[in-house]
């Protein structure tokens, strides 16, 4: 940890935001949906540390609850994509031949779409909601992990310890799950950490465009919707949620960099 400052800083940042997200109901100073007509667009003060929004809601409380949404969307979306990537990638790598051709050509086709276009097109048909955002991001980003795991498995499967397993009569599933995936997981972890950062960025962009998490549920992206109309009037609404996104993404990118160093 000492000679890996990226990892250290990344972990500190992400631990901080995870605590904020987990403890949201206890640490949030006010109810995030409490509308206060007396205190519209108040600048930061002793009562409202980060000020209030156009409905008089406390910005800090909204951001604390927003951390829950943004982090969970990022983590679950990447969970889905890694799960799909692991299954499809290891099947393709292990069985080769037409399984490989089928999965990888499908991945190639998926990679031909600009991801943001594809996500928006799907969102236009299914309703935008937290769950749909998670699923859609997951379904459109499994190709990277799948390619990585496939490449790792292809290089691993001819090694002696795997041949030994075959000779011992281990089933394919056992070899893949117990021996191949654990040995191939390194690059996928780096990819997953970067993926969480990417998914958080995607969610905030979608929410900012009004096509992601829907108000009144607070997410860092949809808090920023209001900053379009309060530009020049209420700087705090623009600055703080954006900083939260920036620092969180920085944290995940640092962890990814640290992991790269550890893996070698």
């Amino acid at each position, binding site marked *: 940890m000492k000679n890996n400052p990226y990892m250290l800083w990344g972990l500190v940042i992400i631990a901080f935001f995870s605590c904020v997200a987990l403890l949201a109901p206890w640490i949030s100073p006010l109810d995030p949906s409490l509308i206060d007509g007396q205190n519209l667009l108040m600048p930061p003060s002793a009562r409202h540390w980060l000020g209030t929004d156009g409905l008089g809601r406390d910005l800090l409380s909204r951001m604390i609850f927003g951390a829950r949404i943004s982090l969970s969307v990022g983590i679950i979306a990447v969970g889905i994509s890694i799960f799909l990537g692991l299954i499809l990638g290891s099947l393709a790598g292990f069985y080769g031949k037409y399984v490989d051709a089928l999965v990888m050509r499908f991945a190639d*086709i998926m990679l031909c779409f600009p*991801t*943001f276009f594809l996500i928006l097109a799907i969102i236009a048909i299914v309703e935008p909601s937290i769950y749909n955002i998670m699923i859609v991001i997951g379904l459109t980003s499994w190709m990277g992990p799948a390619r990585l795991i496939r490449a790792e498995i292809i290089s691993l499967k001819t090694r002696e310890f795997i041949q030994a397993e075959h000779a011992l009569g281990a089933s394919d599933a056992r070899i893949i799950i117990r021996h191949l995936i654990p040995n191939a997981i390194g690059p996928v972890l780096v990819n997953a950490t970067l993926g969480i950062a990417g998914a958080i960025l995607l969610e905030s962009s979608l929410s900012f465009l009004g096509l992601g998490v829907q108000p009144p549920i607070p997410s860092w992206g949809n808090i920023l919707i209001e900053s379009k109309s309060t*530009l020049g009037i209420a700087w705090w609404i623009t600055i703080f949620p954006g900083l939260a996104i920036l620092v969180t993404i920085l944290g995940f990118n640092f962890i990814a960099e640290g992991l790269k160093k550890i893996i070698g």
Partner: protein
Amino acid sequence: MIKYILKRLLGMIPVLIGVTILSFAIINLAPGKFSTLDQAMNPKVSPEYQMRLTKAFNLDKPLPVRYLLWLKNSVSFDFGRSFIDNRRIADKIAERIPVTLGINILSLLFVFLVAIPVGIKAATQAGRAFDTVTTYFAFFLLAVPTFWLALLMMQFFCIQLGWLPISGIHSLDFEYFTPWHKIWDVSWHLILPVFVSSVGGLAVISRYMRSSILEALSQPYIYTARAKGLPYRKVVYKHALRNALLPIVTLVGLSIPGLLGGSVIFESIFALPGLGQLFFQAVMSRDIPLIMAEVVLGAVLTITGNLIADISYAYVDPRIRYK
């Protein structure tokens, strides 16, 4: 070379077919039908109108037949008519292309002009102050949400300082300007969008350039060149740079999907009449034929980008051609 290009072109066909099948499937297998979508938003939609929609989109025919009909029309650039204003989709898209294309070309130029020298300097001074600073700065640029950066820039340059126009592609009284004034006006409006859309590219390309140069500098031919007594600068800018630029060439083609996706965000923030804004409007109003057309267009552009990347790589590096 021609054989290589032909081989690649033929290889594109199955991918293109796959792309069209997939986009068709996504739009058509989703719950709800075109003909009932309108009804959900407007209960007064008459049964006749629904019948007309059903006919217009061949909804009464089986799925594979519909796909083939749609494909037949799409190949001749007939994507049907928009739900919103009943204009031909091909026209709506065509008039939007110059803005998006122009901004992306400008931002690519900007990225290359800045990122390549920065990457070279960072590589030749690896581990020193300039390298460290640019490394951290690249991390920062990669983490900053584009739309937030756009908001901050608008707040600072347009509202507080009043230096730059806040949105649109030209001023309201544009028509009455002289030609030179017109060019001046448009470039003035493009400064922020071009800068904001370059941010990600700056970080990625400068990092890429750095590692590419570092790799080139560790090759034996560099030692030979140095041993001959050539000055360090000449070795870096002639021998190392030429080889280090090879992988960068392909990045231009590969950056197309990211640029298209980004254009949705910044074109809607800066109110620029480009493809991204059109796509955003289509999504907001559920203009399905337009969404379909743009998704397929995006995929075709991405495939073309990959192809250009491959061909240009094969052109600059003959080893690729003969593999």
